[in-house]
């Protein structure tokens, strides 16, 4: 893997530690599934009666069933495919909220949650209560409970794991305090690297992305509904291949919330990624990532001038670690790691300004090291050595 794009030859393979942004590389089976879809049957599913359309329909249906089974959802019609988790969150937020509703959320949320909420708030449509999380990024369950206004709070939105410091949220505990409100979980950072069983969790709306730990391509994601009767209005209306004699959007799922031609090729890739994760075993993936996180934290904590944020505990976080180096800006650190060591990390605010305010790294942000299934102990060792070199020069 040469850095040919920059015109600079690489003397070794890049070490990719930006899995929180997107996973790389993808398993071969993902590309294979996408190429097969494109080559063999990328006809329009459900719109025609011919063989190719049927094959496309079957592939789409099977992908829906694969997602449903992976998250333990009883009916695959409750799985709504979107182009990413941002769309899924927008669909849930804009689709559910009405004039006068109250929303409760935390200070660790991503802009894909905060921007829709702040937009609705600015337009005078809803009131938003942001419950501050601890400096480690831990959700304040009692605070959330206190913020819930019976009869007025319509929605609680919370991330399953922070994209800045990886802190995991106990979704079960949040569900216990939700009252009559709907609970929307942003699982962008957890789906595929942390066990999730929706049949055991009282989550009303579950938003996930396809291109991170689920190992699918960019352009995939979805929203899963608990009962299918949640009153979510469509974000888009149009052709659904059903009820075509009517000019009104159908009321049944998934058609109601999926209009237009789906990303068949991408969804085929997503299904292949999920099957790969399932085969590897989410338990094994989680153990591997915890192990890497432990090694990384161990190395980081021994270094002077390196400040580590978050719970600093592999049990309480995903494989996402944010740091800063005294005397260097995050972007400088990231640049040096990239240029001198071919290590890919992400610097800055990671689209979560409030999270950085919570952990104390606003406005310059942090260096975020996020690992995935494909990372190794040797790579962890390399980044530690690289940082050691940086802090001593």
């Amino acid at each position, binding site marked *: 893997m040469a850095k040919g794009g920059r015109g600079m030859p690489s003397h070794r393979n890049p070490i990719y530690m930006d899995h929180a942004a997107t996973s790389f590389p993808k398993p071969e089976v993902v590309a294979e599934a996408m190429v097969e879809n494109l080559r063999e049957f990328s006809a329009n599913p*459900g719109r025609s*009666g011919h063989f190719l359309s*049927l094959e496309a*329909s*079957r592939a789409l*249906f099977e992908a829906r069933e694969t997602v449903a089974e992976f998250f333990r959802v009883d009916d695959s019609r409750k799985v709504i495919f979107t182009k990413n988790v941002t769309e899924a969150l927008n669909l849930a937020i804009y689709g559910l909220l009405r004039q006068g509703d109250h929303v409760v959320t935390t200070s660790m949320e991503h802009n894909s949650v905060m921007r829709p909420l702040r937009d609705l708030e600015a337009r005078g449509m809803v009131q938003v209560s942001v419950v501050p999380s601890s400096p480690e990024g831990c959700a304040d369950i009692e605070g959330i409970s206190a913020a819930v206004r019976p009869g007025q709070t319509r929605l609680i939105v919370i991330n399953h794991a922070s994209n800045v410091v990886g802190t995991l949220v106990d979704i079960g505990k949040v569900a216990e305090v939700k009252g009559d409100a709907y609970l929307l979980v942003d699982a962008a950072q957890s789906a595929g690297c942390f066990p999730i069983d929706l049949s055991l969790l009282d989550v009303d709306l579950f938003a996930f992305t396809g291109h991170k730990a689920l190992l699918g391509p960019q352009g995939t994601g979805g929203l899963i509904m608990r009962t299918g009767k949640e009153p979510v209005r469509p974000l888009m209306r149009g052709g659904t291949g*059903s009820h075509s004699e009517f000019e009104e959007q159908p009321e049944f799922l998934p058609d109601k919330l999926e209009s237009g031609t789906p990303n068949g090729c991408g969804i085929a890739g997503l299904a292949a990624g999920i099957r790969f994760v399932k085969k590897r075993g989410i338990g094994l993936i989680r153990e591997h990532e915890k192990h890497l996180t432990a090694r990384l934290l161990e190395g980081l904590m021994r270094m002077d001038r390196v400040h580590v944020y978050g719970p600093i505990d592999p049990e309480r976080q995903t494989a996402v670690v944010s740091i800063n180096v005294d005397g260097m800006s995050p972007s400088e650190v990231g640049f040096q790691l990239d240029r001198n060591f071919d290590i890919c990390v992400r610097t800055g605010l990671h689209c979560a300004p409030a999270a950085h305010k919570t952990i104390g790294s606003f406005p310059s942000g942090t260096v975020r090291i996020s690992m995935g299934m494909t990372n190794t102990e040797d790579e962890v060792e390399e980044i530690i050595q690289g940082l050691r070199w940086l802090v001593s020069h």
Partner: protein
Amino acid sequence: MKAEKTLKAGGVGFDTIPVPKEISSDCGMAIMTASMETHRVKQVLLKSGIAIKGMYLKTVTGYEEINDG
């Protein structure tokens, strides 16, 4: 799609066709089977919790809705 999967698993002979325009203007699909298999198809589908929207018998004059118990 689910009906297709269930019938295949149940070893029932069928074909998947576009819904005949005489029945609905939906762009949807329908299961076509020999008239003697109708009862078996119904059983297999209902057993799997699949709701049947309608059943029709093709005659020389068109499609007649089947209303049995």
